[in-house]
């Protein structure tokens, strides 16, 4: 499936910004089941010192500065992506028990396993805890295949947590989300990752987009989409497999990956330091359009 994604972030400042330094992780990465056709950034005012590199996790980062004094700043990422193989993940199955996966992660020296091992550890936004382990326990019964355990965990999070965009902010701890069982896609992904890591397993955070379909009979509104987040688990026999607890589904051809890392903190879509500016109003719009050709 082919998509064109238009993702605009804009800031309106009450004061003048003298200059700013920025890092954008908005360019989708090329990965096994996703082919990047084209991607570009449009920045106003005109950026300077623009450079794209890969970060520690292999994501694309655009670094740029703005030296022209400004009151508004906007960055639009326009990407065309081919999501390969349709519902490729659904055809796979993995039968290794979660205990065995844990052992493999500790002992196996294969380069892919070694890479996965870093995602078993605590990260700045996600600390494993007894509470997270306790929540996940009904899913992680002895001898259960990891795939099943995670699938069950995803379903439980979907069923037991309420989607509430008012309740959390970017800095709400996982602990609070777990206690109140409320949050947004990012929080659900963090909770799931924390649960899985509490069992010594590897889970990472994925950011991207999801295609949304309009209600039957209505036309889709441009810009009504949002950026999305889910998680991925390492299964030694099939590799990394994605799970979307917000939508209770295993991502197929409607999920577009931008970046992954240990948690949100590793792959903040847009980071920056501005000099001046005082207060600001932020606006974000995302449009995921299916391309027919």
């Amino acid at each position: 499936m082919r998509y064109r994604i238009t993702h605009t972030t804009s800031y309106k400042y009450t004061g003048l910004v003298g200059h700013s330094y920025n890092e954008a992780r908005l360019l989708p990465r090329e990965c096994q089941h996703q082919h990047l056709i084209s991607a570009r950034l449009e920045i106003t005012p005109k950026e300077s010192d623009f450079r794209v590199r890969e970060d520690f996790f292999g994501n694309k980062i655009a670094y740029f500065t703005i030296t022209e004094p400004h009151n508004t700043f906007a960055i639009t990422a326009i990407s065309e992506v081919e999501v390969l193989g349709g519902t490729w993940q659904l055809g796979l199955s993995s039968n290794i028990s979660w205990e065995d996966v844990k052992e493999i992660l500790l002992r196996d020296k294969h380069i892919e396993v070694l890479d996965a091992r870093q995602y078993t550890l605590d990260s700045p936004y996600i600390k494993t805890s007894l509470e997270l382990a306790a929540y996940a326990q009904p899913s992680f019964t002895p001898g259960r295949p990891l795939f099943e355990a995670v699938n069950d965990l995803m379903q439980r999070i979907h069923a037991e947590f309420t989607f509430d965009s008012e309740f959390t902010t970017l800095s709400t701890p996982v602990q609070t989300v777990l206690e109140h069982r409320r949050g947004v896609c990012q929080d659900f992904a963090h909770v799931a990752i924390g649960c899985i890591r509490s069992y010594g397993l590897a889970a990472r955070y994925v950011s991207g987009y999801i295609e949304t379909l309009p209600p039957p009979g209505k036309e889709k509104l441009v810009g009504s989409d949002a950026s999305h987040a889910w998680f991925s688990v390492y299964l030694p026999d099939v590799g990394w497999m994605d799970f979307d607890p917000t939508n209770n589904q295993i991502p197929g051809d409607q999920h577009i990956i931008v970046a992954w890392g240990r948690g949100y903190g590793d792959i903040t879509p847009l980071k920056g330091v501005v000099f001046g500016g005082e207060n600001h109003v932020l606006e974000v719009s995302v449009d995921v359009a299916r391309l027919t050709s």
Partner: protein
Amino acid sequence: MTPNAAPNSYLLGVGDYDEMLDSQGQVRSHWSSLMQGMEKLGSAEMELRRKEALKLLYENGVTYNVYGDSGGSNHPWQLDPVPLMISGQEWSHIEAGLLQRAELLNMILADLYGPRELTKKNLLPHELIYNHGGFLRACDQIKLIGHHQLVLYAADLARGPDQKMWVVSDRTQAPSGTGYALENRVAVSRVMPNLFRKSQTRRLANFFKSMHSGLTAIAPPNAESPLIVLLTPGPFNETYFEHAYLAAFLGYPLVQGDDLTVRDGYVWLKSLTGLKRVDVIIRRVDDTYCDPLELRADSRLGVTGLLEVARRGNVAIANPLGSGILENPGIQPFLPGIAKHFLGETLKLQSAATWWCGQPLEMDYVLANLDKLVIKPIYRAHGTSPVLGHLLSQAQLAELRERIRTNPALYVGQEHVSFSTAPCVTPQGFEPRKVMLRCFAAADRNGYEVMPGGLSSSAPEKGDMLISGRAGSISKDAWVISTEPELKYETARNIGASATRGNEHALPSRAADNIYWVGRYAERAEGSIRLLRATVRKLYINPHNNDPDYDESLQCLLRGVANLTGTWPGFLDEDHSALLKSPESELIAAALDEQRSGSIANLLRNVVRTGYSVRDLWSTDIWRVLDDMDEHLDQPLQLGENALWKLQELMDRQITTLSAFSGLSMENMTRGNGWLFLDIGRRLERAMLTISMLRNVMSVHHRDSVEAQLIESLLDASDNTICYRQHYRSYFELSAFLELLLLDVNNPRSLAFQIACLKNHVSKLPSAGKAKRFSTEERLMLEAGSMIDLINLNDLMVVSEEDIRENLDQLLSRLYYLMNALSDAITAEYFRHDSSPQPL
């Protein structure tokens, strides 16, 4: 006494290994000459020399600032004059061990931020590195040019139970101590000159030479004479003294984060003469605080975008960001394996035995022996520090055990090394105390250079433990005895001199700003003290309470005091007639109340504060004066009875101190940009004070008899009484007074004199004379100068029907405006400050 017998008072603790005495109680040969010399001096004399050394350090302003101390005050550096003696033979072993270890750590650093073979081959456990807060993923694949990634290295050594020197911890982030070591050497060799000369102690200068050369070597290519700066967190940092000291010694500009800016992929110093490209940064800021864009967003100590510049190889940072990973004590047990892997060698220096709890067997061992070990977190975050197991209660041990169990990979247990002892001077004679030694290495092109000796520290009391770090320890010099005389050494001062050349223009704007304000505050303090003192004298010495002339002139002066010091409401408030009748308490507050903005104490505090932030620019003598000022401020004055008399005495002393400061800065500072801004600040402030004083007191016409009294006081306040009497007569007359204070270019306190100085100074400012036309500053001073030149005294004396001297008032008002405009113009042109950064 036989030559090798121990001093009588020197009693060793049971089981302690002593550096000086062997197991038979004989003085070891490399100590004998020193010990004989010190014995000959006698313990009373040694105690005197100890005090002398402390005084010397104190006078040099050597301090160590303890974080979290109330007000972050500076503690004098503690020094014991008995050096730790190291034989040439043992040193060659230590040196070889340090060279090997520095090389090894360098290879580990290059690997961890490069191919990471070590974790892939399990020579370093994955969890030990990836769990460590110092492993900065943003720094991955960044490399300095050349072989050396670890540029500066320090190791804390102590003698272990096998009587060999062991490494207790590695310092690889921003190692401190080289400057203190140098100061210690200066102090000890000064108080024991003969013993030092006879000892054939190896000199420290070569180390700094190599360090400078090594820093030059890592500069990005095509930087012809690289600009090297020293980045400090600022005056509140615990080792700020050392930052300033090293910067001055090596001739590198001392900068704070906001003195630097990133533009077009390079780092620039915001200097007086515009942006200067920076090639090398010695950082004394912890790496996570260095770049709010990519590292800690809440840091105010860093430079936004710094990491990206380093990534492109356009600036070299020593040590590189991310090098804190090597301070992970969990690496120590894996060093032998890595040494074999990388070098095919065994370790020449042992580490203290260390067990990383990330491995099940090791964790079990640590948990079972918790009360015998030192427990260290692998990452030194805030609120985590090493603990000695045997000092913990059962409850604390249980709590610690639980913490280790929950996250074993984050802890190590380390053998509690029983350090050796070495002699210290006490009033009762020599006493053995536990010692350790911090050694330093710096990478030069062809390898590491180790400082011969280093910074030694000893426990504050006999029998006390010593843990790597600080906690009240007393420092010592360390003498490495050379087996043959060193043929050639350069004095340390030469390095600084050669490096300084050309850096004059690299004076950071912030430093210029601060030094300008030192000048202004010092002058404002002096002027305020003089006026206050004149007022107190009038009140105290000659109170004619029923003389209406006296009352009127006193009230006029009191209002002047309030105006000048800005201690509103004070005597300015209309309702304070009672205050005007008995002004003592208000005057005392204006002098002593530090919380009151504009008070004398407040102004002096500002002199010290701004002075301290440009610590590297002052000579030792000037610094001593600033230190004096600081010390007096910290000693509250007991006024009691005769309060005004005591106040007067205090003010006399303060005037002397301030005069010493201005005298030294006139005589001892080179006439560079630093001095220029200091003197501009001073002249401008003096001009403004004189104008305000005249305007406050003389714009309104009083009876002649009142004015005579006012003139007398103002002459007193400006230290011009004698001068007036010599030139004029003993009768106080306004025109003569105005001539002396306004027009006399030969009177260093006159307005004409200040303006002449300022006119000259502004023509030397960095951007003056660049364009064909005059600069703003020059135009302002031209106008002020010609106003003074055109003054007609008779016109100024004219009094209006409302009893106002309008011409005088207008003239002074315009001159005041021009002075203010000059200050604004200089601030806008030279002290550019960015607004503070905030996250997007």
